């Protein structure tokens, strides 16, 4: 047992006394015999925090079974599957859903095509300065946020924007570059690029450079080395990056809203409109829940097929 506090010599620092007091408190409320529960205690705050989200999902599930009473503009008291029926039968929702799904698939492929060379050069370059430059060029837009970046694209692509002014100088009439599908996809690719590169880079770092030299000395040119050595070994990174890009672009709100100008709504925009334009909370909750289901199933299937890739938390061994 430790000596009582009064027996401390005078030179005993205050911070030690404080620590001893804290230790005593910790030992009192959490005796050693509870030590098996320590990891759970440490996880508790995070579990509670995420619990808020679970409660929210539960509320959404409840709301999704209530239809909007058009007489009172209140959700009905009785439950029905009418909202789900509408979600699957109405043409508007089908259009929006297929637009988002096809769009996010295109965005994923294009983003990975650009992210791979970027991370490869960043990981393999021998110049520390170049590596830092590429990292900063990546983090700056990542840290600036979607709205400001979309605003930048409005300035560049607008009808009186840079591109059109430049075209005007060579005598080309202004082209409508904004508020269409390609503009939204383009905006999403540039928004997703930092995510994809950051997920790919660790996977590429893990590939020993000697593997590539070995393939080279066995007579493979760089294209074959990439196809047969680098790309297969980078698979965990591609899975992580592809998954993140696919789910984030499928569910994005800001880019379709700003660069699509209301004519190119993705699912998130349709959900928002249900809540804040038509005030049909039940329908909005239904769509949101379906989106959550699609997102979770996609993540689940990819994890089940390929493992968590670079997304795993905790013990790696």
């Amino acid at each position, binding site marked *: 047992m430790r000596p009582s506090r009064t027996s401390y010599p005078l030179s005993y620092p205050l911070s030690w006394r404080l620590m001893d007091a804290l230790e005593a408190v910790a030992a009192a409320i959490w005796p050693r015999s509870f030590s098996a529960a320590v990891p759970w205690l440490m996880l508790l705050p995070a*579990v509670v925090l995420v619990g808020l989200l679970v409660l*929210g999902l539960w509320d959404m599930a409840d709301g999704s079974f209530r239809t909007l009473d058009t007489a009172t503009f209140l959700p009905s008291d009785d439950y029905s599957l009418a909202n789900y029926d509408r979600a699957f039968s109405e043409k508007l929702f089908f259009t929006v859903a297929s637009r988002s799904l096809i769009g996010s698939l295109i965005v994923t492929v294009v983003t990975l095509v650009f992210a791979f060379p970027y991370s490869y050069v960043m990981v393999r370059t021998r110049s520390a300065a170049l590596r*830092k430059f590429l990292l900063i060029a990546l983090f700056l837009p990542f840290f600036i946020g979607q709205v400001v970046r979309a605003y930048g694209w409005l300035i560049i692509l607008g009808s009186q924007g*840079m591109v059109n002014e430049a075209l005007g100088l060579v005598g080309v009439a202004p082209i409508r570059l904004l508020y269409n599908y390609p503009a939204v996809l383009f905006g999403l690719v540039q928004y997703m690029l930092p995510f994809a590169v*950051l997920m790919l880079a660790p996977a590429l770092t893990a590939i020993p450079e000697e593997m590539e030299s070995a393939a080279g000395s066995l007579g493979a040119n760089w294209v074959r080395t990439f196809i047969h050595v680098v790309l297969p070994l980078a698979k965990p990174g591609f899975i992580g990056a592809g998954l993140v890009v696919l789910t984030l672009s499928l569910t994005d709100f800001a880019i379709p809203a700003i660069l699509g100008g209301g004519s190119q709504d993705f699912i998130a925009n349709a959900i928002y409109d249900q809540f804040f334009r038509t005030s049909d909370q039940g329908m909005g909750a239904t769509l949101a829940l379906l989106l959550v289901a699609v997102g979770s199933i996609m993540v689940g299937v990819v994890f089940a097929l390929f493992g968590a890739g670079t997304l795993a938390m905790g013990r790696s061994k």
Partner: protein
Amino acid sequence: MKGDRSKAVTLWTFVAIALVMLSAPTLVVLGASFTAGNMITFPPEGLSLKWYAEIAGATDLRDAFLRSLIVATICTAISIPTGTLAGIALAKYRVRFAAGVQVYLLLPFTVPLIGSGIGLMLIFGKWGLLGQLWPVGVACAVINLPFMIWAVTASAASLDPDLELAAANCGAPPLSTFLAVTVPAVTPGIITGALLMFILALNEFLVSLLLVDARIVTLPVQIYNSIRSIITPDLAAISVVFIAVAAIAIALLDWLVGLDIFLKSK
């Protein structure tokens, strides 16, 4: 080696396009903020700082920025202890049902933002918390928590269990061991995570949009509302504040832990 030149050319073509895509909006916003005209035109009508003077006097933009700072601070203050403890627990202990816990803690990441935002809006609404600023901070902590946990678990590789045993062997009680040995080992992760959480909350748009009302708009929401009407250069000037904050965060990150930490393989 033969073909090295074509490899470099191919790779660099992609990298150059990616660099333009990544940097163009930032550079253009920076340039537009210094225009002397009342419209954003190209080429600009001369240089001036008048839009900076304008935003310095605009109380609505200043207040919105302050509110964003408050939200980011609350979010960071919540997520540092929460994410650090959870990250260490996942990395250090062999937890029962660890896979289930991981799936659960990944929920904020797998549930799309619009879903999380609406779910939180519904329960905060039910509890009568909407219209205040702190629930927005809590919401940002919830949706970004996986990033904090990832940052901590990624640096937990340097967490040598023998060190903790050594500390205990030297007579350190559990709490001292935790604070003097365990926490310092994951400090790079905590710093990285905290900076990420702050920046993500400062920029958080969709969840803010769902949780705020007209009286407490945060800066990204304010900018969003404004670009839907007319694009004036004062927005470019206020956007430069975001660029400046991002630059400071990157400099801090590089100075404290080094940007290379993101290239390390787990």
